[in-house]
């Protein structure tokens, strides 16, 4: 079955379930239905060989019943048989109708409303499923290559009994990989919607160049503060950590936001402007409720707080305006403005310091002060007078975001890199970010 056939079938089935359930609603009840599906291929590599192959067909419906300030929800898999799936959905709706009555009222409940209709389906040019392993391994054959190819189609739908109906689907791929020279490694990622063997070869060659620099003698760097250049992949790691509760209005209101000081007037560098931008095309703009986000939501503009992501629930709970953020109030399509530092000037501008290609395993180390700890990973180098001297041994950093993106931020690069989300917990996620590199006057390493 082609992805086109699959999507047509899913859309039809989702429509059938809607029609089947809406007529079973009692007075005062509203129902919202979300669809999440994927047909994915995961091919895992180690030592330039195939370690594991998994294909997945997973289709789920999320059903939420609301009645008079009360709500209850259930998720279930569609089995593909109309008869079975309609019967199952009816049975689960009945259970919700019975149980919702006994629940306490929720004063912050967001009413189910018609947030419009849309249909947005993107077919890409995915590699041939029967030969993509050869396309990959013919390039990596003489390297120690490890990673995962994830490809296929991802579907999101959001409908409700008030008439709303959004359907979004996209085909994409992501080859997230590392090249190794013993314990030294360089990271690469080739992702998009149109596979090209030439582009894959180019990605591989670039990563291999980074690996070759690691052949230089390893530099022993003591803990302390150093000038540092954070490549776009390292900046992305910082922004992903910020996204987890750091820009959530709900977390702020509940006293659990690590960037509360920013919300309360702390200013960062004028060079720092962060926003959510759905024009970047990483994901659909509608959230779980079917609300369509403004195309752009400015979070920080020239170092000054503008908005945190505010879901309708948070807005209702605290008497605020919603910016149609998702329930989790994290960034789904992140954009950080570029600066003026040219690629060819990065090493010269760094002078003597540490070139950070990637960061790893970040977490908040002080949630009151917005301090983050994490590790250097992959190709990170010691640079002296604008010349790479050699790779460093992994270092732990522990630093305030208000310093990294505030007083210590010297420049952002004039180029940016785009990252499609590679996370596949539970299912393939549709998110992404577009970020520049950052030159900082000081970065604190503690171990």
């Amino acid at each position, binding site marked *: 079955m082609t992805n086109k056939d699959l999507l047509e079938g899913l859309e039809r089935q989702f429509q059938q379930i809607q029609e089947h359930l809406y007529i079973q609603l009692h007075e005062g009840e509203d129902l919202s239905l979300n669809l999440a599906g994927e047909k994915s291929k995961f091919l895992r590599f180690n030592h330039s060989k195939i370690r594991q192959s998994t294909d997945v067909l997973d289709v789920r419906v999320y059903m939420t019943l609301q009645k008079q300030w009360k709500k209850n929800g259930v*998720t279930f898999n569609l089995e593909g048989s109309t008869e079975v799936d309609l019967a199952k959905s009816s049975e689960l709706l009945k259970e919700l109708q019975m149980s919702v009555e006994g629940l306490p009222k929720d004063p912050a409940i967001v009413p189910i409303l018609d947030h419009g209709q849309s249909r947005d389906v993107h077919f890409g040019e995915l590699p041939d499923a029967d030969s993509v392993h050869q396309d990959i391994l013919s390039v990596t054959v003489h390297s120690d290559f490890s990673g995962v190819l994830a490809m296929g189609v991802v579907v999101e739908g959001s409908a409700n009994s008030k008439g709303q109906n959004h359907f979004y689907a996209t085909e994409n791929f992501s080859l997230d990989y590392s090249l190794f020279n013993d314990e030294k490694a360089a990271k690469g990622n080739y992702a998009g919607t149109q596979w090209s063997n030439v582009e894959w070869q180019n990605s591989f060659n670039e990563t291999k160049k980074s690996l070759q620099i690691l052949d230089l003698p390893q530099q022993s760097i003591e803990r302390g503060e150093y000038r540092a250049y954070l490549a776009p992949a390292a900046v992305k790691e910082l922004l992903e950590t910020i996204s987890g509760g750091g820009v959530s209005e709900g977390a702020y209101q509940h006293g659990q936001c690590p960037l509360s000081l920013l919300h309360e007037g702390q200013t960062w560098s004028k060079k720092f402007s962060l926003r959510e931008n759905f024009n970047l095309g990483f994901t659909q703009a509608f959230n779980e409720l079917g609300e369509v986000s403004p195309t752009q939501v400015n979070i920080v503009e020239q170092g000054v707080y503008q908005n945190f992501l505010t879901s309708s629930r948070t807005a209702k709970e605290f008497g605020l305006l919603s910016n149609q953020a998702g329930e989790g109030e994290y960034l789904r399509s992140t954009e950080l403005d570029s600066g003026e530092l040219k690629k060819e000037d990065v090493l010269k501008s760094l002078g003597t310091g540490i070139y950070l290609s990637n960061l790893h395993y970040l977490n908040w180390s002080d949630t009151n002060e917005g301090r983050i700890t994490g590790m250097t990973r992959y190709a990170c180098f010691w640079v002296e007078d604008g010349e790479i001297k050699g790779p460093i041994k992994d270092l732990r950093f*522990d630093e305030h975001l208000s310093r990294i993106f505030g007083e210590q931020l010297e420049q952002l690069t004039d180029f940016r890199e785009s990252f499609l989300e590679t996370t596949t917990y539970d299912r393939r996620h549709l998110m992404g970010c577009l970020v520049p590199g950052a030159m900082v006057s000081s970065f604190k390493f503690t171990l």
Partner: protein
Amino acid sequence: MDIAKLQKLLTQLKNHSDWLGLRFYSKDMNRMAVRNENPENNFRRMSAGIMVEVLKDGAFANFGTCQMDLSSVQSAVNEAEAKAELYAKYKLFHFTEEQRPKAVGEYSSSVVKDWKTLSQGDLNQLLVETCKKIKVSDKIVSRRAEAEFTELQYLFVSSNGTELSQNLKFTGTFVEATAKEGVQTQTRTDSGFRGKMYQSGFENFNKDEYFKVADHVAKEALELIAAENCPEGKMDLVLSPDQMMLQIHESIGHPLELDRILGDERNYAGSSFVKLSDFGKMQYGSSLLNVTFDPTVKHQLASYGYDDSGLKAEKEFLIKNGQLVKGLGGLESQARSGVEGVANFRAKSWNRAPIDRMANLNIEPGESTVDEIIGAVKKGIYMESNRSWSIDDYRNKFQFGCEYGRLIENGKLTKIVKNPNYRGVSSSFWKSLTMVGNQDSFKAFGTPYCGKGEPNQSIWVGHASPVCMFNDVEVFGG
């Protein structure tokens, strides 16, 4: 689904592979959350499907599908067979049926009182009451109580005669209080983020005890707001079992996973400072360190009868008297590495292939009482409940933060301190283990959030430990 139906499905399939296995998983999870006395979330999450696994020419291939009719499963088998054949030339290792031994058996969690004996409405009311108990002051700006109940069924049949049926039931509770004064906030939970999950029913739940915990958590959040920052310096560190859970997980569990050491995880979670040649030789920690892999502990979260290859789950010492004995590797990793392992080849659901995971990974009790441990410390700090964790990709350099700390001065617990953190290096940290608590301080915890693998999968694990003391550790505050 039951084992007979799955067996019937297997016999109906046209199979051209060397070995065929069907794993049916179904999960039925109910979670309810109340915040500030109002219901925040009530949802039931059901998931069911079949993972088809074939072995052909030494290569395994998997196809997970939620469409479980004969025709759909046959398509999945055909697709998996075609892929196994296609990839055989490029396979990392030549596997055989020895990695999927015939196994017949059953396992069920020990549950006396199913949570379904209470209505969802009653459970919500209980959580509302719990939030009220947390509301001890206007400074408590966020009050949260949650409960989670999960039923998990997994069935496994194969062309070489495996018939396994396992039924697990989990119960988890979570309480959290956040206090705020000015711009300072402090959050206190009952043993860290969702760390209290067990394989049990409602029989172990005591409402009065739960309310006491809620009150305690709230009062400690207030105490933390008023507390000084944790001091900075090298000193003795005493860790409670709910922080030892994280310490074991990150700096013993993950580094001992054989698939990490074999390089499967290098692109994602990372590798390990432990080498294959270290097993049987390496002194991992002090002679007081005894670590067991034990999926047989009644009520601990990650107990089971068999792993997903069909290997029977048994208690095994991974570290004995400080020496590294065995790895955390299932039959595939054992065949690849030549290192002895355990029954830990597990998938989180029908849509992911099994990989090496922790199950219950515990530190065996020692001989010291908590009073003796505290009494032995001249200058140090006691820490409870994890709130932050970070470790390098070789599982060596770590930094962990806790919710609650208390100074230990001249053998006595004194002032409460906030934002307690410590950092160290796994390969030397465990050698600084100087006292291990006895059975009286031994406590078990469990979490459903151990992340690993490509594609990613988050699985349930359990950890139990007594109170432990480490000397000369770098600690610091906010």
